[in-house]
């Protein structure tokens, strides 16, 4: 349990420290160290969970179960690798004079703030705190989106702030309704505790819960980026500094989805018509298709990949909506591999745009000749995210397709269509950027590509064989969510 507190404590220290001394040189290194320690702490936590199973803190404030433990480790890991990437990136940006000291302070301390919020969302046992943390994540990142102070970035940040704020407010209303349903059967203070709610899910009033779920879905769905609530997402991703886009895509969306699924479990427990499932399927499929179509119209490389995030979140939501062991397992796996792959891609994207000195895809050309590592990284990453084996994304998409074919065959063609369109949309933009001759006056930049290599390596590993402990967690989580295991 100490591990959990440690995990929450370290980022908090980080916030304070960086707020004071964030502008000093090699703070990037320190950031890396901080995240490394955090990662170790999470690993320790994970080992505990592996040994003694689900952990509930004595004061019932924190709950670590198979569903969130691997997400915690994932969060720490992506935070760590992204900090590795952000160190040279930010240095380069500072050389270009895009950033002042204060903004650097802001950046680093809010980076930690965001991590804190993420850990809190995952570890807390209290649905209310979960909401607070989710809102906190927004508040932490909103100033990072407008870090460059360009008109576009401010516009993006404003939209991000307002839309997510309003959305999250809906979630709060949903939480209140949940609480309202809970107090009718339980005591006041503990009524919002997940552990309590999950035990008595059967006795909760289904009507209230359904209404509550609608609000929660709209609220957290805005954060997931479900169409038509997604509009903030591409703006925020494209205008902020790239490390931010990496963690937003890799972590924030996942955690929002995590929150939705937690609530779905309650609703399913309470009412046995698969209302929540259908809603999620509908939203997921819509986001999947629309995101895929949007890919075709992009000119900005980061917007491109943020739409691909929308598409993939759509697929996960759809998979969770289908329910059933296979689809759930697939969705859990997809959460992992997607955030790994997507953050890796954003790393390469960041370097690519630094090479070209622009985010517009028209200007990025011939990467493989200019800076082969970045070019290949981008290409392979895209191959992976497009769902080609032996990368893990393929595994999950394969399972989703089969589950769909099993449960809702008439939806399978839509999925097929979506994947095809998305693939075409990605590659019609990627190929010209990586291939071709080296353009004039573009020089390699200082880049640290270990994050990319590690992430893609992991995704490859997950695609070839899922390690047993992870498989164990996945199947336990599947058992929690869908009521049976695929094993």
């Amino acid at each position, binding site marked *: 349990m100490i591990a959990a507190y440690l995990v929450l404590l370290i980022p908090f220290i980080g916030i304070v420290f960086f707020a004071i001394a964030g502008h000093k040189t090699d703070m990037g290194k320190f950031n890396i160290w901080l995240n490394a320690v955090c990662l170790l702490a999470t690993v320790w936590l994970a080992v505990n969970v592996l040994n003694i199973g689900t952990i509930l803190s004595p004061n019932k404030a924190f709950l670590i179960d198979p569903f969130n433990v691997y997400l915690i480790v994932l969060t720490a890991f992506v935070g760590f690798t992204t900090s590795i990437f952000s160190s040279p990136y930010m240095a380069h940006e500072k050389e270009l004079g895009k950033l002042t000291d204060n903004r650097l302070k802001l950046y680093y301390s809010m980076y930690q703030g965001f991590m804190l919020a993420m850990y809190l969302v995952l570890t807390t046992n*209290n649905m209310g705190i979960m909401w607070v943390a989710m809102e906190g994540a927004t*508040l932490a990142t909103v100033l990072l989106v407008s870090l460059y102070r360009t008109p576009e970035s401010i516009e993006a940040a404003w939209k991000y702030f*307002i839309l997510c704020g309003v959305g999250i*407010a809906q979630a709060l209303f949903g939480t209140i309704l949940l609480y309202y349903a809970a107090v009718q059967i339980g005591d006041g203070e503990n009524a919002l505790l997940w552990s309590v709610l999950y035990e008595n899910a059967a006795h909760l009033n289904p*009507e209230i819960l359904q*209404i509550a779920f609608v609000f929660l879905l709209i609220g957290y769905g805005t954060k997931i980026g479900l169409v038509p609530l997604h509009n903030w997402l591409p703006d925020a991703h494209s205008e902020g500094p790239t490390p931010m886009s990496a963690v937003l895509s890799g972590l924030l969306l996942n955690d929002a989805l995590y929150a939705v699924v937690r609530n779905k479990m309650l609703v399913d427990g309470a009412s046995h018509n698969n209302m929540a499932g259908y809603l999620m399927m509908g939203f997921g499929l819509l986001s999947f298709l629309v995101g895929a179509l949007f890919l075709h119209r992009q000119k900005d490389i980061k917007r491109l990949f943020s739409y691909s995030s929308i598409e993939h979140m759509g697929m996960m939501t759809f998979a969770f909506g289908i329910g059933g062991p296979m689809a759930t397992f697939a969705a859990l796996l997809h959460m992992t591999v997607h955030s790994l792959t997507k953050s890796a891609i954003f790393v390469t994207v960041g370097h690519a745009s630094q090479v070209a000195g622009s985010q517009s895809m028209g200007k990025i050309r011939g990467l493989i000749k200019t800076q082969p590592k970045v070019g290949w990284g981008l290409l392979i990453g895209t191959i992976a995210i497009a769902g080609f084996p032996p990368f893990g994304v393929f595994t999950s998409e394969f399972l989703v397709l089969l589950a769909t074919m099993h449960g809702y065959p008439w939806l399978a063609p839509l999925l097929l269509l979506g994947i095809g369109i998305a693939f075409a949309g990605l590659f019609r933009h990627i190929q010209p950027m990586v291939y071709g001759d080296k353009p004039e006056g573009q020089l390699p930049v200082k880049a640290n590509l270990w994050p990319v290599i590690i992430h893609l390596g992991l995704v490859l590993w997950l695609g070839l064989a899922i390690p047993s402990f992870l498989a164990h967690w996945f199947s336990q989580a599947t058992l929690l969510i869908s009521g049976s295991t695929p094993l």
Partner: protein
Amino acid sequence: MNIEQTDFYTQAILSMAALVGLTSFLMLGQGRLLRLIFVFALQGLLLTLTTALAAYSLDNPHLYISAALTLVLKVLFVPWMLRREVLLMNMHRDVQALANKTTVMLGGASLMVFSYYVLHPIVQTTSPVMLNALAVSLSVVLLGMLLMISHRQAVAHVVGFMSIENGLFFAAIVATKGMPMVVELGVAFDVLVAAVLFGIFFLHIRTSIDSLDVDLLNRLNEVDK
């Protein structure tokens, strides 16, 4: 059951609910920013009173804290900030004509009805006061959104956002006699930070587009020119 048979507390709560709903309507129809802010402050005050009332009649001490927080944040700090902003941009003179005020108002009214309709399925499991409170707060939330949709000033958006918060808060107080303390504090903290951020953003927006009209923030889109 009819209102005569209920105790004073309930009657008070119900009338409070009515007043809060009314303020929302007033805000929705309001074209002048200063008045808008004033009405918003009024709503905050009503909320404070409600909280205090609840705290008193349920003698639930931690609600006093919430009341105090509400007073400080929603009645004093935020309105002061907004007012300052408006005066700074000297927008207090110009009236923003709502595109089609009557439609908006009618829409608001129908929203009220709609929220009752939505909460109808849970009527048999709850007392009417709860139902009323929930319905009103839901409609306040919806009206707040409608306010944001219909107004173009960033200030109005902030007001709308905050009034949504008010609605939620009202629900939390009345329907569930206050959330757990931690949650209350967390929410209050978030509101505070949000308010501060709004301040910062006004600064940025002004510097970037030299106006607070959100319709001018439309560079990022997917439409072919």
